[in-house]
């Protein structure tokens, strides 16, 4: 055998490679190539854009352990928000580091999560503490106005609404404004009084025609039976029917009030569902950031 230092090295290298291949095959390990920082970010972005948010968060978190990254840090919060884990998103955005370039956006998203959690009173208090030089002041002002559409409070002047909602969907939002002003309502007192006057009338007023007629017939029959029995001298039976009449008479007044309340709630819920759908479509008039362009 010829002494050749190069050949020795070759053999050593070969052995080394063979060993590497064998060892990697034995202890199943993921290939390093797919787990470099750059590739992890790429894969994480892919997950984020296919709405696989929780996996994206995991991927981003592993990336952040290797190297700080402002965008990823922001997108983690966004992922929680889009998974509708508003509680986590709210805390996350609230404690977002000021030195991150996405700090204003995180602040806006913090406001938005409070809004999405329907914590409208808290939202308005937070809004009172905000200042006009905040980058997204118009956005949070709009959200602030929108809180009124979800609550039973006097609405702000429509000219203010018009002023701040200078957006393509302006007319639609004004339509919702007018709809809120004219939301059909039935008075609970009127429903109760009407049924006290004529059994069943309150139910009819609250939109329940069939129930109203049934209540009227019920009260009529029971009342007649009470009267008829008293007249015929059947005192005990008379009292039983009188008692039943009283119960159904009271029950109908109670039920009329409840029916009016349900009527109001139904209109309110339908209105809010419609409004929420619209706002979701418009992304609550907040920026989309276009991370998945």
């Amino acid at each position, binding site marked *: 055998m010829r002494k050749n230092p190069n050949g020795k090295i070759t053999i050593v290298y070969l052995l080394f490679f063979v060993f590497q291949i064998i060892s990697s095959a034995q202890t199943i390990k993921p290939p390093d190539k797919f787990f470099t920082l750059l590739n992890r970010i790429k894969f994480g972005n892919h997950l984020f854009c296919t709405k696989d*948010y929780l996996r994206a968060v995991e991927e981003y978190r592993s990336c952040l352990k290797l190297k700080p990254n402002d965008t990823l840090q922001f997108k983690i919060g966004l992922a929680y928000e889009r998974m509708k884990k508003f509680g986590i998103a709210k805390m996350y955005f609230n404690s977002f580091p000021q030195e991150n370039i996405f700090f204003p956006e995180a602040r806006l998203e913090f406001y938005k999560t409070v809004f999405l959690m329907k914590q409208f009173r808290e939202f308005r208090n937070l809004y009172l503490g905000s200042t006009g030089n905040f980058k997204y002041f118009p956005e949070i002002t709009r959200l602030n106005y929108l809180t009124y559409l979800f609550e039973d409070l006097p609405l702000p002047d429509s000219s203010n609404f018009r002023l701040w909602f200078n957006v393509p969907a302006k007319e639609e939002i004004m339509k919702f404004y007018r709809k809120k002003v004219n939301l059909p309502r039935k008075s609970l007192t009127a429903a109760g009084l009407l049924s006290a006057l004529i059994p069943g009338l309150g139910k009819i007023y609250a939109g329940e025609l069939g129930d109203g007629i049934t209540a009227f017939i*019920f009260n009529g029959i029971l009342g007649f039976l009470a009267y008829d029995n008293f007249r015929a001298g059947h005192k005990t039976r008379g009292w039983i029917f009188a008692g039943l009449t009283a*119960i159904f008479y*009271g029950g109908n007044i*109670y039920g009329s009030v*409840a029916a009016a*309340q*349900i009527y109001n*709630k139904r209109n309110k819920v*339908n209105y809010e569902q419609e409004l929420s759908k619209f706002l979701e479509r418009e992304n609550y008039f907040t920026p989309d950031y276009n991370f998945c362009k």
Partner: protein
Amino acid sequence: MKTKLIFLFVLFSGIISAQTDWDKWEADNSIYQLPEIKDRDYSLDHSNFGTLALTMLRDVYWFGFSDLDGDNCPFQPTCSTFFVDAVKKTNIVQGVLMFADRFTRDSNFFKSESRYKIGKSGKLIDPVDNYMLDENKITILGVLPDETE
């Protein structure tokens, strides 16, 4: 009809697939069973004398009448359960008034089905909470929680 179904399926599967993995999950070792027909829960409520008497009364009614005279109630919960729950959640006077109102609505031959959500069993869902005169407790069509009984 068929295209509508396919469209619904696509829409539905789209929503599902986006959300399944928003929470970590484990292997599912449950086994498939046919939905069972459950017996009524006859258990007594011992929290105080009133509820005990009430649940006893209910059990007697169930045993002697309700369980023997067939399926007559279009509502869920049934009138007797509604009554017991109404009294438990409020008081005897309010509970009786709520029951009288429910009985009237039950007797209405022309129930508007659009007013009630229809449960898995085909019954109209009419929860006690809707009649407690507290607007926050009222649940409306489509946003009702799953049936309780």
